[in-house]
């Protein structure tokens, strides 16, 4: 199954980044029996005309790193167990023979939109006087003058016009060519901004009305496709915008209400089957204020709890059984709406603040990934040349200078550490791990190591080294695998044992 994941706007990119972190940790979508969904490929497509958006750039860089790391670990096998389990591919990568030309990128090319002011895009100057007057009623002057390479600056009315271009794009055609029965589509967008609020309904409309579009293949499969969406409600505030009111925090609720009414009428109504599953997520506790930036300065918002929780939505959707998405005739079922609540209404959260199901899904993988982060950054260098590193395939000291290691540690894990810090410093504060703590015994916030005969059990690099030595001793599975796979797979297995035997169980 392929999950086409359209991440729209800045929130889309940030949620996608959290999904990457979860995927790197090995969090996988589970079916109703609690088993990982088989043969899953996630195809993220970022839709955002604001190419200079820092959140988009950071997410794109991580997607590229993730793909490179995973390829080295598992090749093209969609079924993997452990770190970087979910296979993530570009549209280009899975395109078979096609007349469509596409770049190997995760970003939707919105060339026609990006390079123009909105007034140029709609041909305002070529309109007759009456149409110009009508247009001026619908769009404020600053909206008409908005150069769209910085996005739609919180104006869904611009986005809803500009993003209609999507249906004529090569990316959309490629997507329609690739899409097959059994695949699913998921949208991530915010509802209180410009790009996401407009992009989601437009994309859904175009997919459901694929039969009316020219040059689109698999029309029937598209019009019956299971579609899910994460709609992010207001969760952050802005500061420093006294003289520029293009985006105002005070408008977020009004915009949300309007958009929700629109969604109800067109996408998610009681008998509406345009969207099968809708996940609503927001927080009355607002983030620490982000610097006001409609787009000119790159827009870089700190990671937030909502994005982490939001990233669980596409994973949940991928695991929903077909019986809950299709009726007996194979047509999409009406919308099911999902909400999310914390187990504890804390302002500073750890794993114990999350509900049981969330904890079951992410606690062990995320903890193991954090321990891997600590192990790679504080332990591996001194271990090379001993123990498991000397078993075939050998991990030699030049491994530390390899492209894989640098991508994993110097890039991906650096971004991971930054992501954790940002979430920790935000409101609500997400304190899953103690910031800056390298003592593995005390690194998981709110979770202690088990008691031993004298004192407490210990968790450190030596414990992992010892476990990995034991696992590697009789392992024959690594003889035809890469060094990279051996290292991460051994650690994953060792971490599971250490985790079970040495940390208190909070699930």
């Amino acid at each position: 199954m392929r999950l086409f994941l359209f991440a729209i706007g800045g929130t889309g990119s940030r949620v996608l980044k959290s999904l990457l972190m979860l995927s790197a940790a090995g969090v996988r979508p589970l079916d109703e029996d609690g088993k990982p969904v088989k043969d899953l490929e996630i195809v993220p497509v970022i839709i955002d005309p604001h190419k200079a958006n820092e959140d988009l750039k950071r997410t794109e860089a991580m997607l590229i790193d993730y793909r490179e790391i995973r390829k080295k670990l598992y090749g093209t096998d969609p079924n993997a167990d452990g770190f970087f389990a979910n296979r993530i591919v570009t549209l280009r990568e899975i395109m078979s023979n096609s007349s469509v030309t596409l770049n190997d990128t995760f970003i939707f090319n919105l060339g026609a939109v990006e390079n123009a002011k909105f007034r140029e895009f709609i041909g305002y100057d070529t309109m007759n006087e009456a149409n110009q007057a009508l247009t001026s009623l619908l769009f404020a002057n600053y909206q008409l003058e908005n150069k769209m390479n910085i996005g739609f600056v919180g104006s869904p009315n611009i986005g809803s016009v500009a993003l209609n271009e999507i249906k004529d794009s090569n990316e959309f055609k490629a997507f329609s060519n690739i899409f097959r029965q059994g695949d699913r589509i998921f949208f991530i967008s915010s509802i209180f901004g410009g790009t996401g609020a407009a992009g989601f309904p437009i994309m859904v409309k175009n997919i459901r009305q694929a039969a009316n579009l020219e040059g689109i293949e698999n029309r029937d499969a598209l019009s019956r496709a299971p579609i899910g969406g994460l709609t992010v409600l207001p969760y952050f505030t802005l500061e420093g915008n006294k003289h520029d009111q293009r985006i105002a925090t005070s408008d977020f609720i009004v915009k949300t209400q309007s958009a929700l009414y629109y969604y109800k009428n067109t996408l998610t109504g009681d008998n509406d089957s345009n969207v099968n599953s809708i996940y609503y997520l927001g927080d009355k506790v607002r983030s620490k204020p982000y610097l006001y930036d409609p787009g000119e300065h790159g827009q870089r918002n700190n990671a937030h709890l909502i994005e982490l929780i939001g990233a669980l939505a596409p994973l949940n959707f991928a695991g929903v059984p077909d019986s809950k998405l299709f009726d007996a005739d194979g047509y999409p079922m009406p919308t099911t709406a999902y909400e999310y609540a914390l187990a504890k209404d804390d302002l500073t959260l750890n794993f114990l603040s999350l509900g049981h199901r969330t904890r079951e899904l992410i606690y062990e993988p995320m903890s193991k990934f954090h321990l891997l982060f600590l192990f790679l950054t504080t332990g591996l260098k001194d271990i090379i040349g001993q123990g498991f590193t000397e078993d075939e395939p050998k991990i030699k000291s030049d491994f530390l200078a390899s492209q894989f290691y640098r991508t994993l540690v110097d890039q991906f894990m650096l971004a991971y550490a930054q992501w954790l810090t940002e979430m920790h410093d935000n409101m609500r504060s997400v304190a899953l791990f103690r910031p800056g703590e390298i003592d593995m015994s005390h690194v998981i916030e709110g979770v202690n190591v088990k008691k031993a005969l004298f004192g407490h059990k210990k968790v450190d690099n030596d414990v992992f080294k010892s476990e990995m030595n034991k696992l590697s001793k009789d392992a024959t599975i690594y003889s035809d695998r890469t060094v990279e796979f051996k290292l991460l797979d051994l650690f994953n297995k060792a971490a599971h044992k250490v985790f079970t035997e040495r940390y208190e169980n909070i699930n």
Partner: protein
Amino acid sequence: MKHIGFLITGIVVTVLFFILSCGFDYNIYEWMYTSQGFSDSMMNLNVYPVIAAITIIVAWGGAAIYYYAINSVKFDRWYHWLAVMAAVAVLSPVICYLYNDSVFSDSGLAYAGQAMRFEMVTVLFAAVLFIIASYSIRWWSSNCRHTPIPQ
């Protein structure tokens, strides 16, 4: 399979060493050290096989302790192994000397000087046997199987 081969080879070499220590005409200890009177007494009192047995037990025991009792990631460097070898190379001649001394005392003999020099041979055999024992049994150690030299 290769590791079983190492183990069998180690056992065979050790047994050969013991057999050669029992020899009358060709005694491995006398190839290394002879001294008029002392060597005859060692042979006549049948001390060589006991000395050989002590050396074998200490060397193989030391290796077993290192690879299976210590067996720790904190002690898996070559110099940890070397330290255990040094301990074996010291302990083995000390025990052998004490045994020698007690046997000679019971017989009213006094070869303190020769016995001291003879124990240098025991140092050498203990070290060699420790290396043989190490390469025979290290492969099944979880943490020290690549010590002292990774294979």
